[in-house]
C-alpha cells in the first residue's frame, strides 16, 4: 500500500514561483505521469517528493505518514535519473546491490535480489561490468534494476528514456510498463513526451506554469481537455481552434456554419476539434489548403479557414493539392468548446 498525497505544495526559487499550490493524490499501484513542457515544474515536484528539494510550503504524505521533513533515505522511495547516475566505480552487481548493502542485508539475500532484478531487466550477463563498459540502454536498465531492487513503496522516474535513441526508447517503454505493473509499485514518471505519457500512464497530470492543469486518465485528457492549454498541448498536431459567435439557444456560428453547442449566456466561445476528427463533406467548412504532407498512414493538410490556420488529418488516398479549396465537417460528438476569457472548457 502506497498512496501519495501532495497537499498545497508551493515552491519558490527566490522571487520565481516554480510550483503553485499543488494538490494531488496518487493511489496505490497507480502509474502517474507528470507531463509538461520544460520549466513547468514537473521535475521540481518529483524532487520534492523524493526529498532532493524542499517545498517552500505544503505537505507530502506517503501511506498516511507525513514525509516532507524526512531525508530521501527514510521516505521509502527509489529514483531513476535522467542521466542514469550509475556509480562508475562499482560493478553492475554492486550498483544494483548498493541500496541493499546500505540496509546491511545479508550477502546471500543481496545476491538473490540483485540476480532477480538483473534478470528482470535482462542484464544478468553484465553483472561484472563497470558503467564505462555499458551502452546508454544498458545503463538505463541498471538504473531501473537498482531502483526495483530496493522494493520501494514508490518509484520515481525523471525522464528516464529521454537520453535513449528512438527505437530503444520504444522498446524500453513497453518493457518498463510491464515490469512496473508486475512490481505493483506506485510510480511517478516525469516526461515532456506526450506519446510516452499516453502509453505508460494510468493517469496523466498535465502541468503548466507551476500548476496541474488537468489530472485524468490518458483518454480523458486527450478527448476532454479541461483547459485550452491541454487541448493545445496534447496531440500531434494538437487541437484546432476557431472563433464561434453565439446565435442564441445553444447555436453557434463557426466559419459560416452553424453548430449545436453549449447553452450559455456568453457571446463568444472557441470551437475546438482534433485534426483527425474532420471528414471531407459536400457542405462543410470552407478551407484553402496551404501545405499537404502525405505521412503514409494518412495525409496531414494544413489549411486556412477564414484566416485561421487549421490542420486536418485525412484519409491517405485523399487527392488534394496546395491552393485548392476543400470542404470538411467535424465529427459532431468530438467538438469541444472553450471560453476564450477563462480558457476553461464549456459544456
Amino acid at each position: 500500500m502506497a498512496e501519495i498525497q501532495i497537499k498545497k505544495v508551493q515552491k519558490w526559487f527566490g522571487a520565481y514561483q516554480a510550483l503553485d499550490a499543488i494538490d494531488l493524490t496518487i493511489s496505490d499501484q497507480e502509474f502517474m505521469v507528470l507531463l509538461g513542457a520544460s520549466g513547468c515544474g514537473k521535475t521540481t515536484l518529483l524532487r520534492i517528493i523524493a526529498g532532493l528539494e524542499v517545498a517552500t510550503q505544503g505537505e507530502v504524505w506517503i501511506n498516511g505518514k507525513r514525509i516532507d521533513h524526512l531525508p530521501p533515505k527514510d521516505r521509502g522511495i527509489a529514483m531513476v535519473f535522467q542521466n542514469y547516475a550509475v556509480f562508475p566505480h562499482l560493478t553492475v552487481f554492486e550498483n544494483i546491490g548498493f541500496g541493499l548493502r546500505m540496509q546491511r542485508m545479508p550477502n546471500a539475500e543481496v545476491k538473490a535480489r540483485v540476480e532477480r532484478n538483473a534478470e528482470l531487466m535482462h542484464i544478468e550477463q553484465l553483472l561484472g561490468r563497470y558503467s564505462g563498459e555499458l551502452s546508454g540502454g544498458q545503463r538505463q536498465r541498471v538504473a531501473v534494476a537498482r531502483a526495483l531492487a530496493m522494493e520501494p513503496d514508490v518509484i520515481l522516474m525523471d525522464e528516464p528514456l529521454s537520453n535513449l535513441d528512438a527505437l530503444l526508447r520504444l522498446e524500453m517503454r513497453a518493457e518498463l510498463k510491464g515490469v512496473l505493473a508486475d512490481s505493483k509499485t506506485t510510480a511517478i514518471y516525469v516526461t515532456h513526451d506526450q506519446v510516452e505519457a499516453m502509453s505508460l500512464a494510468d493517469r496523466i497530470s498535465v502541468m503548466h506554469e507551476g500548476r496541474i492543469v488537468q489530472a485524468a486518465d490518458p483518454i480523458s485528457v486527450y478527448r476532454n481537455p479541461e483547459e485550452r492549454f491541454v487541448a493545445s498541448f496534447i496531440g500531434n498536431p494538437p487541437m484546432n481552434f476557431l472563433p464561434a459567435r453565439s446565435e442564441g439557444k445553444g447555436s453557434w456560428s463557426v466559419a459560416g456554419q452553424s453548430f449545436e453547442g453549449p447553452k450559455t449566456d456568453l457571446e463568444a466561445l472557441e470551437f475546438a476539434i482534433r485534426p483527425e476528427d474532420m471528414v471531407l463533406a459536400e457542405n462543410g467548412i470552407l478551407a484553402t489548403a496551404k501545405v499537404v504532407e502525405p505521412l503514409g498512414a494518412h495525409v496531414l493538410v494544413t489549411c486556412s479557414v477564414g484566416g485561421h490556420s487549421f490542420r486536418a488529418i485525412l484519409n491517405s488516398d485523399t487527392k488534394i493539392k496546395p491552393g485548392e479549396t476543400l470542404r470538411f465537417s467535424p465529427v459532431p460528438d468530438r467538438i469541444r468548446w472553450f471560453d476564450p476569457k477563462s480558457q476553461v472548457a464549456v459544456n
Partner: protein
Amino acid sequence: MNTVEALPPNARRAGHYLYIATVVLLCAWVLVPLYLLFVNALSSAEAVNSFPKSAFPEFDLGSLKFFAGFYGILDALKNSIIVATLTMIMSIAIGAPAGYALSRFEFRGKATFRLLILMTRAFPLPLLALPLAVMFIRTGLDDTAIGLAFVHTTLALPFAVLITFSLFSGIPIELEEAAWTLGCTRFTAFTKVVLPLILPGITASAIFAFVISWNEVFAAAVLTIENRTLTAFLLQNLDTAAIHLKFAGGFILVVPALIFIFAVRKYLFAMWGIANR
C-alpha cells in the same frame, strides 16, 4: 571545413616543425639543468672546476658522501618531510571541504570567495615575514614543524581548494542524489560514492601541496632556526660552500622530489584529466 586541412601542405609542415621545436625546447628547459646538476653532483671537485667539462659523470660520490656525513642534514631532511606531510594533510583537510562547498552549494559571495582564495597568492610572503615571525614567537610557534606547516598550508591551500573544486564539479550531483535515495546520508554518500571517485585527484592535489612545502625556502629560513628544513638548511650552509658542494646540495634537494613525483605521476595525470573535463 577544418582550418588545418584548408592550409597548404608546406604551411602545415611548418606548423608541425614549430610544434616539435616547442616540445624540444620545453623538454630542454627542464632536462638540461637537471642533467648538469646530475653530472656535476656526481663528479669530483676537480672535474667540476675544470674546463672543458665532461659530458658524462665520473660517478664520484665524494661530494654526496660529504653531505651524507654533514652534521644536521639528516635532521633537516626529516624536518622537511614532517613539514611537507603536515602541509599535505592540513591543506587537503581544509581545502577539500571548501572545494566541495564551492562546487555543491550556492551561497552569497561565492564568486568573491573564489577570487579571495586566489588573492592570497597575490600577497607577497616577504611582506608578511616579519609580523608572522613576531606572532609566531609570541605564540611559541616559531622554530616548530607545525608552525612552518601552517605557513606552507596557506601557500598550498588556494591550489587545494581550486583543484578539489574542479574535481567535485566533475562528479555529477545525480550520483550523490542517487546515493541519498538508496539509503545514504549526506556523509555516507560522500564516503561511498564521491570519495572513491575523487581519490586519485585528491592524491594528486596532496602531492602538489607536498611539493610546494618541499620547495619553499623563504618562510622556512625566516621562521626556523634549530629545526631547519632541507631547503633552509642548504641555503644557509651552501651560501659560502665550494661550487661542487652546491651542486651536490641541489642534487639532494631535487632528487627526492623527482622520485616522489615520478612515483605518483599517474595520479597527477588523473588530476588534470578530471580537472580539464
